[in-house]
């Protein structure tokens, strides 16, 4: 009996050790890959290709250090980041709220969705990035034109998922709630919204990326501050290292946002079986 217990403990320990070893190997290979890519780029740019066009990792690193220590051509880097982030966040919040509300309303009303279907299809077919130029004319060079661009990109991404989520609510659940005594608003609040939540959360992941794209493209079309302006300026002065540096900053911001959203998702979707959650993380 005791022996069996011992056996079990050893088996568990062995399984854990094997798991750790595997994780270590995976991480080690990842680091090697990064070193290999950056190293060959650095070497190539030093000996063969022209770093004026392609830049090189060390130059990009120097540019980043320079931006964060002495500031950019447009002023402090933190001001630029804060400005872009503010635009993206406002656009993200407004677009998500609008998309969720309209998506659920249309998803629950056959009549409204039938009426609006062709218009929504048409609106979705518009290359929305072009609207950024229009918004600059409408709202000027300030923050509101960028917020509008971010909003329009986020809105459609979230809207379609919320719409689909509200449509695919299990009829059984709705009928059951009605029998149990739920009013129309109670059905909406306790059945439709929670059912659509996993759809909506899935769309929020890509939506924050869209919000940043919207803000940057908006700044690109004309702005007095922001990361998009910084990149545009780098382009204007043939500063390829600056473009890469801007790209890296935006990537880091997007990854941080993604991480926060994953935390939120895990909190809201606690009830889901863990297998599905694992798949979702990959």
């Amino acid at each position, binding site marked *: 009996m005791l022996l069996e217990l011992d056996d079990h403990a050893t088996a568990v320990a062995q399984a854990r050790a094997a798991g750790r070893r595997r994780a270590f190997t995976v991480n080690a290979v990842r680091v090697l890959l990064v070193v290999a890519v950056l190293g060959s780029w650095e070497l190539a740019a030093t000996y063969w290709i022209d770093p004026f066009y392609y830049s090189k990792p060390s130059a990009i690193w120097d540019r980043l250090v320079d931006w964060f220590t002495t500031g950019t051509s447009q002023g402090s880097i933190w001001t630029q980041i804060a400005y872009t982030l503010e635009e993206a966040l406002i656009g993200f919040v407004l677009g998500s709220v609008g998309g969720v509300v309209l998506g659920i309303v249309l998803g629950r009303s056959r009549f409204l969705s039938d009426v609006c279907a062709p218009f929504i299809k048409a609106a979705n077919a518009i290359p929305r990035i072009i609207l950024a130029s229009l918004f600059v004319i409408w709202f000027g060079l300030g923050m509101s034109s960028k917020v509008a661009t971010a909003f329009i990109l986020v809105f459609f991404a979230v809207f379609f998922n919320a719409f689909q989520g509200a449509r695919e609510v299990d009829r059984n659940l709705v009928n059951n709630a*009605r029998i149990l005594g739920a009013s129309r608003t109670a059905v909406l609040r*306790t059945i439709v919204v929670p059912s659509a939540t996993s759809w909506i959360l899935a769309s929020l992941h890509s939506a924050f990326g869209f919000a940043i794209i919207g803000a940057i493209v908006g700044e690109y079309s004309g702005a007095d501050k922001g990361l998009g302006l910084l990149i545009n300026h780098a382009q204007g002065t043939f500063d390829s290292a600056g473009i890469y540096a801007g790209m890296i900053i935006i990537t880091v911001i997007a990854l941080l946002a993604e991480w926060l959203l994953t935390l939120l998702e895990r909190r809201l979707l606690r009830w889901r079986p863990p297998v599905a959650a694992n798949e979702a993380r990959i």
Partner: protein
Amino acid sequence: MPTQAEPDGPAIELRDATKRFRSSSGGVHTAVRNLDLAVRAGEFVAVVGPTGCGKSTTLSLVSGLEPPSAGEVLVHGRPVDGIPAGVGYMFQNDAVLPWRTVLDNVAAGPRYRGVAKREARERARDWVGRVGLGGFESYYPHQLSGGMRKRVALAQTLVNEPSILLMDEPFSALDVQTRGLMQDELLRLWAGDDPLGKGGGAAVVFVTHDLEEAVVLGDRVVVMTAGPATVKASFDVPLKRPRDAEEIRLTPEFLEIYREVWESLREEVQITRERSAGNAA
């Protein structure tokens, strides 16, 4: 289960009820035709019929989820318009909310009916215990087995103390042993504190395609025709209560009534089989 049923008059009455649906191909599909059925307060009626004949539609007429196309549906003597008070409905598929714990699932009914949160949870806790899930209050449905989820659904329905209980093949997805256990459990809960096991007063309409289940549970077995459904025959089940769902199948009385009902049901099953064979060909 206490009853709010009026002393005289049936708890449920369908008079010449017909239900048609528009089918997706543009035609009209008649699910229920000229159905007459009355269920007394406190009576346990099992409805059997071939698969897909329109048994479930009958339940949705009584529950008020679907209005009849013709004829009348009365609950406690009043025409059904919307969902009548005192109706509980257990669906064939799981209808528990996956994002709520067992306790909050069971508390849903009272909450919808305006009971304060604390009070609703108190009632829910009581019922979770009564269906044998004490200790699982904070589990989510995906952490439970199929049989346990059925218990949650049962508690969710019974916590509202329905005077009319509609059940649509609730145990059909369970394995045989769990099904027997749930049948016993249902009979026990339906009987409430009544030592004779005759039921505390809720009228039950239990739809199933399993004749054995129908005879084990019902005071009366109603046989439906192959679709469109209408009542073909009704048999009183002379088996004494309280019944042991698993033991009673072995008695000669059980076999006798089973054989009698099966004679009637067989023809309808045959018709359904021939039709589906015709469709497949």
